[in-house]
């Protein structure tokens, strides 16, 4: 396997883009990524998307989008693993370039949530759970996240307030991210007073769904590139799975897929968790951020809220997370989220993060999780 570099990135703002289609969003992100990379052709396209069939009545995204971006004829495919689709597409693009099958690849994450209203969207999202053992019985992502959070609080004697720091940090960082869905910071006490969605999960625990697209251009290392920014090396790319239904896990508070994929990634990159300077994690719910920190070796079991409580997750902290707002405040763009994470990590490593810049970033990690942990994709980036 040869080395793979990221040579270009692009993103649209995450939000309620009522007047723009899946293709509109895809084109904008791809054009930006091509401009950034200084190329306009690639050998293959990999699209991460979770709900286009259900919500936009559009499958067959590989052919659609390769045509839309002016690359009719190239190899193209879609990757799907619920909201880990974006990370999974990057993994597919990485394999294609690393294996030597292609020289360059475009990886796009795109999601269009707002063509339908709340209940229809909720019903579609539930399809990412185990239909026979969860969905049929009325479980939703939020309901299951609430069960996990309640169990966690009970098991480890953790108070609700311990989760507040995750949302406060996300909103503080999103405030200066022009592509974020929300730019409001959370007032002290706002977290505790937020309306419940499914107790103990409140409006400020759960990430909002938004439309968006993000793209990265991959090239084999050593290939001459004209991009203005230095290429970044993908030091690790790893996918792991767990039981889809939460009920089938011997220890529901342990994200086995997150643990496995992070472990494989550390091994590939030859690093330890303590070497990671920035971690873009999958904070779809505050409890998911907590469990990811524990599964990836950044906190001991039962102590996953401590980095937030102790102020270590801010831009100047020991382990900055959600540096552009995370899923919670940049917005959760479904199958595009995994690519937003990598685009943001790239900005951090390039030193182009502006007011969101973390100092001296050498190694960045992104982890994209499908649903409540059925799939986890971990990527580690380094300066080439």
């Amino acid at each position, binding site marked *: 396997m040869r080395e793979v570099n990221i040579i270009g990135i692009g993103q649209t703002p995450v939000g*309620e883009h*009522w007047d723009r289609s899946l293709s509109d969003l895809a084109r904008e992100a791809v054009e930006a990524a091509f401009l950034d990379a200084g190329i306009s052709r690639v050998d293959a396209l990999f699209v991460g998307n979770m709900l286009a069939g259900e919500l936009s009545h559009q499958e067959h995204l590989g052919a659609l989008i390769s045509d839309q971006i002016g690359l009719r004829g190239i190899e193209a495919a879609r990757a799907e693993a619920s909201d880990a689709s974006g990370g999974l597409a990057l993994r597919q693009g990485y394999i294609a370039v690393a294996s030597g099958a292609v020289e360059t690849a475009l990886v796009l994450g795109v999601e269009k949530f*707002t063509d339908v*209203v709340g209940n229809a969207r909720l019903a579609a999202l539930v399809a990412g759970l185990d239909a026979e053992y969860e969905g049929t019985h009325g479980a939703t992502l939020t309901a299951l996240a609430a069960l996990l959070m309640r169990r966690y609080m009970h098991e480890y004697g953790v108070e609700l307030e311990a989760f507040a720091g995750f949302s406060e940090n996300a909103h503080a960082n999103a405030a200066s991210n022009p592509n974020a869905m929300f730019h409001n910071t959370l007032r002290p006490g706002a977290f505790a007073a937020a*309306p*419940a969605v499914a107790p103990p999960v409140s409006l400020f625990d759960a990430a909002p769904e938004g439309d968006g697209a993000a793209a990265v251009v991959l090239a084999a290392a050593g290939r001459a590139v004209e991009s203005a920014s230095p290429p970044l090396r993908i030091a690790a790319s790893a996918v792991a799975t767990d039981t889809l239904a939460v009920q089938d896990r011997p220890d529901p508070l342990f994200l086995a897929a997150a643990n496995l994929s992070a472990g494989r990634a550390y091994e590939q990159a030859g690093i330890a968790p303590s070497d990671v300077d920035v971690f873009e994690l999958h904070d779809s719910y505050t409890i998911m951020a907590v469990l990811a920190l524990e599964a990836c070796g950044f906190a001991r079991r039962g102590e996953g809220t401590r980095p937030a409580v102790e102020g270590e997750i801010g831009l100047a902290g020991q382990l900055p997370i959600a540096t552009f707002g995370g899923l919670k405040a940049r917005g959760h763009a479904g199958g595009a989220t995994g690519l937003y994470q990598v685009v943001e990590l790239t900005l951090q490593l390039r030193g182009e993060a502006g007011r969101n810049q973390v100092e001296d970033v050498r190694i960045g990690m992104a982890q994209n999780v499908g649903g409540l942990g059925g799939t986890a994709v971990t990527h580690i980036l380094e300066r080439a």
Partner: protein
Amino acid sequence: MTTPGNNGGHTTESGRLLKPSADVGIVGYGAYVPRYRLPASEISRVWTGGQGGAPITEKAVPGLDEDVATMSIEAARNALARAQIAPSQIRAVWVGSESHPYAVKPTSTIVGEAIGAAPHILAGDWEFACKAGSEAMQAAIGLVGSGMAAYALSIGMDTAQGRPGDALEYTAAAGGAAYLIGPAENSLAVFEGTYSYVTDTPDFWRRPHETYPSHGDRFTGEPAYFHHVTSAATALMEELGAEPGDFDYAVFHQPNVKVPTRAAKMLGFGKAQIETGLLVGVVGNVYAGSSLLGLTAVLDIAQPGSRVLMVSYGSGAGSDAMALRITDRVTERQGRAPTTQAYIARREVIDYATYARYRGKLQMR
């Protein structure tokens, strides 16, 4: 200078202003709000265990024997009482509503007959979601302003439907107002001009045979309500060379308290200008009657010389903006029929069970 196509009317250069060649105004107006009130706390008690905030305090609920026809008749009689004209002088009876009792058979014929205006009348029912009433007012302005008729009656009235447990159930209410449009010289308020802004924006709808409407959640905000309301208000003020500060009162379509308050702020209107006509907190959203009922509350207390801006909003979507100047005649007519506030004060609180019975919400399937 006149614009081709406006036939000598005194419209503006751009031709966007809707203004007839002869000045017309409101000769009489009448409000109607049914007696029963359902507090929002009752709805949250039943559906959310009392959790969460409510967009209004309480809403008006029609009684068992009330519908858009009976309520329109009440409002029309109030308008006639204020105008003191013979019903036989009316040449059109138009009712705008989302809750016409029949799918086929006009409400307006029932109203026309009941108030003694039939048979020498135009009659018809209007539908444009919550702006059906203001649309009917603009048509009446044209009919009277062209000289085709001396008087025309336009009504906006609703018994709005809210799906049990839906966010709209908190606000979907009953009420509205009637306006007798006639020559300026007999008017208590004269139209300075009107304007209408319409696009195809599917934010809220009800299909045939559906009991309750559907809506596009947050899509009903920015691209729908705010875009149309502010566009209509801005264009009308531009055409008239007016600014928010020129108006003593402003009335906006009011689906809840927050939305019209924000629209007013976006346009540059202050609390003092909107509070008289902002009734939704204690009446609910009366849909096609919403902005029209807000305007009756203003006319009840307005002084001669005052200027009023009214902006309706109908889903689907569009906004009608109207500018009015109050005349000396307002003083003698205000007291000739019950005021809007009198209807609001006439209240009997009911619980959710009674409301469910009155609104026919108990259906076993």
